[in-house]
């Protein structure tokens, strides 16, 4: 592709919009802009996933007032918020790991967070289903 030739990074270049970058973002060669932007959108999608889980937690906390016992509902809400916080952190580290792998033309790291999230949400679904069935 013709575009990729002039996308090669020039280390040490500083502009007003972009301050000094860490060394890991100056090693290797800058990936094709499509891959960089896809990585950025993936990061944003993970943040949105976390925010949707957070909104779900708030909705359970506010509107599932007839679900008993209340203590268990609150514990579930807190766990959902913590899961959302973990996903926000993982979003950043995954973006960084992908960026590093792409700069060195290595395979992208395996997304361990995907099975983790699936298992968490599956357990939560079973848990809430059981609570609703009992109540």
């Amino acid at each position, binding site marked *: 592709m013709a575009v990729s030739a002039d996308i090669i990074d020039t280390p040490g270049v500083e502009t007003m919009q972009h301050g000094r970058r860490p060394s890991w973002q100056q090693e290797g060669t800058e990936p094709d*802009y499509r891959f960089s932007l896809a990585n950025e959108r993936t990061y944003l999608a993970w943040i*949105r996933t976390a*925010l949707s889980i*957070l909104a779900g*937690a708030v909705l359970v*906390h506010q509107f599932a007032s007839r679900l008993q016992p209340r203590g268990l509902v*609150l514990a579930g809400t807190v766990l959902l*918020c913590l899961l959302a916080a973990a996903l926000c952190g993982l979003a950043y580290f995954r973006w960084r790991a992908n960026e590093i792998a792409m700069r060195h033309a290595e395979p992208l790291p395996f997304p361990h967070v995907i099975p983790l999230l699936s298992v968490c949400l599956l357990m939560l679904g079973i848990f809430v289903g059981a609570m609703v069935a009992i109540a």
Partner: protein
Amino acid sequence: MPGHQVPPPYDPGLQAERTVLAWSRTAFALLVNAILWLRTGMADGDRALLLFGVALLALAAGFHFCGKRRGRALMNGARPIPAHPALMGALASGAALACLLAAVASACVGKA
């Protein structure tokens, strides 16, 4: 630099546009959360929750502003293309902090 015109790169995949839209979707997701907490704060008459809702609104505005700036830079053909790690780290930590505060808030509020 305003007024410094660079022709946009050839972009048949509309990469810049899709990235800007992803940023604004994320800002909207934060806005929804902010509204939920503002509603909770108003319903319970709790100042701390209202303040938290306002902080989330500010974070949503931050995401929106960053997305707009990013879009302008991309469409003007700014180099280098990858986002600044400080920006990505700051926004992710902001969102993570909001989730942790929400955990604390939901543990403390509405025990009855």
